[in-house]
């Protein structure tokens, strides 16, 4: 069953001035448990598509359904709640809260979900252990490397038990070793725990590990390859 379904999604920036067509009718279905990379050259619409799927932006046309909910019909406040419960985000620049420790960063979204302190504490420890940071839980982002920060970001994205995780260029700022390490962790989470990952990326190392590669060009899907 598709957990993400887009139909005829378009996105036009500056429609009244000089229109820029970022997406031109994208139809995409993503099943639970997929490990999908959305690739394409700069300006092809990868990030725009991710933003729309993630409920951060609204399409100019078409429909987006996530877990059976048509997110285009949700108000801004409903969208915020929807993201909190259903979507985990991993950003290119990590975007951790600098004044919180690794563990507090992971607990933060669960706090927004009003989970109990005990549950937050236990799950954050488990997730940080899962990404190999059990000995870094009391460190703040500034005290960690880029790779470690991105692993905290993955743990944070997993914390609310989302339907899927959207990762926008997650390895863009990482060195080779950190990239490999991060991909190993995400692949294991995908295979062992069935976590759905959707990436936008330029990084060939990510593309090589993906089990499905959707290629965008000029706002349209030009190739959709599923690997065995």
């Amino acid at each position: 069953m598709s957990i993400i379904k887009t139909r005829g999604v378009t996105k036009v920036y500056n429609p009244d001035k000089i229109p820029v067509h970022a997406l031109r009718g994208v139809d995409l279905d993503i099943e639970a448990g997929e490990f999908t990379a959305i690739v394409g050259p700069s300006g092809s619409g990868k990030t725009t598509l991710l933003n729309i799927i993630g409920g951060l932006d609204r399409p100019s046309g078409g429909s987006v359904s996530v877990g059976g909910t048509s997110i285009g019909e949700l108000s801004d406040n409903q969208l915020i709640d929807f993201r909190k419960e259903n979507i985990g985000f991993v950003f290119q620049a990590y975007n951790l809260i600098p004044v919180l420790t690794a563990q507090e960063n992971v607990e933060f979204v669960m706090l927004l979900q009003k989970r109990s302190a005990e549950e937050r504490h236990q799950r954050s420890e488990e997730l940080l252990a899962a990404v190999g940071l059990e000995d870094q839980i009391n460190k703040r982002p500034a005290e960690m490397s880029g790779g470690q920060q991105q692993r905290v970001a993955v743990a944070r994205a997993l914390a609310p038990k989302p339907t899927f995780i959207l990762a926008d260029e997650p390895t863009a700022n990482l060195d080779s070793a950190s990239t490999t390490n991060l991909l190993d962790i995400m692949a294991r989470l995908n295979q062992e725990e069935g976590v759905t990952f959707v990436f936008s990326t330029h990084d060939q190392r990510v593309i090589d590990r993906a089990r499905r590669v959707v290629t965008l060009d000029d706002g349209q899907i030009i190739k959709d390859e599923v690997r065995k």
Partner: protein
Amino acid sequence: MLTTIAWRNIWRARTRSGVVIGAIILGIWALVFMISFTTGMVQSYVDNAIATSIGHLQVHQDSFREEPKLIYSFTTDDETLQYLGELEGVAGAAPRTLVDAMAGSSRSTRGVQIRGIDPAAEIPVTGLDQQVVEGEYFPEKGRNPVLISQALANKLKVKIRSKVVLTFQDKNLEITAGAFRVVGLFNTGNKPFDEGNVFVRRSDINRLLGEEQMAHELAFFLNDPQRLGAVQQEVQAKLPDLLVEDYRQVAPDLQLYEGQIQTSATIFMVIIMLALLFGIINTMLMAVLERYRELGMLMAVGMNKVRVFGMIVLETLFLAVLALIPGLLLGWLTVVWLADTGIDLSAFSGGLSQFGMSQIVYPQLQAGFYVQLALAVALTALIGALYPAWRAIRLRPVEAIRKI
């Protein structure tokens, strides 16, 4: 955790937070000092007026207040005076005969008011004996003694034991005069009062006026000013035909000055709070704009606008509270210290005494003002947080996340 984030965010830009906290501390301290100084100065004027001439309560014949003529007098008896002097909260009750006169020496003349007093009764009311800086306070022996101020002595060019002739109208409106001997020089610190008043025994002036029990004024000094209203009622009940007024009614300028304390405090507070307001808005706006991407991320992962708004407001309130506590403490300590030692303004004593104020000002502040100030700072911080917080919730996560 929102509280934790808000608290820690304050310390992300230590210098900037330190500067704004320092500015608020300084503003609060300056406000406390200025208002306590103003209060002390005005209060010294009011206290001087009460202590040296007016007292807390005065009794007159109705017409005397309209037109202070010699004939608008009343008579007093010892029994009534004793009763009134022993009322609860009353330190003393002093009858006075008041006569406009010319004081003449061999060298000069000046217009004065003769204040005929009972020397013993006057002491608890005005403490006049303590104001005598040279000579004696109405010695038992000697005929027609007079106390004049140092300032008047200089004008009349007289000294202790000099003769002064007081010329005035008697009850028949005939010009009469009496020769008085200067027995003491006083200095109340209130220059206009000192230059315009002389003290003689009431029995002496009444004899010259031809009316032994005459008085124009009965002044009360209270050792418990809280009982002012009650004492006023009790005196009025005892003297139903006379006009009994408190010092505010007798001297409306005192009421005006007392009112000025609150007005000045409000003006000072508004000015300082406006300065703090813009400082807070500037600081918090910078904090929000610097953290644009972070705020976008918070909203992306599910932090709703109410929480984002609350976080910014909370940060601002933390800043204010961090400054409020030391600011109030510093201000309070300054007031406590200066209330004891006073601020010596003798360099400006000429000007101050012209206005009936003391040379040493003892700053003072009511406890309620500290509460008002704390609320004002909190309210200012709250108002100052509104615009930055509004800017924070207006951001679009999709744009903010990518902002560098």
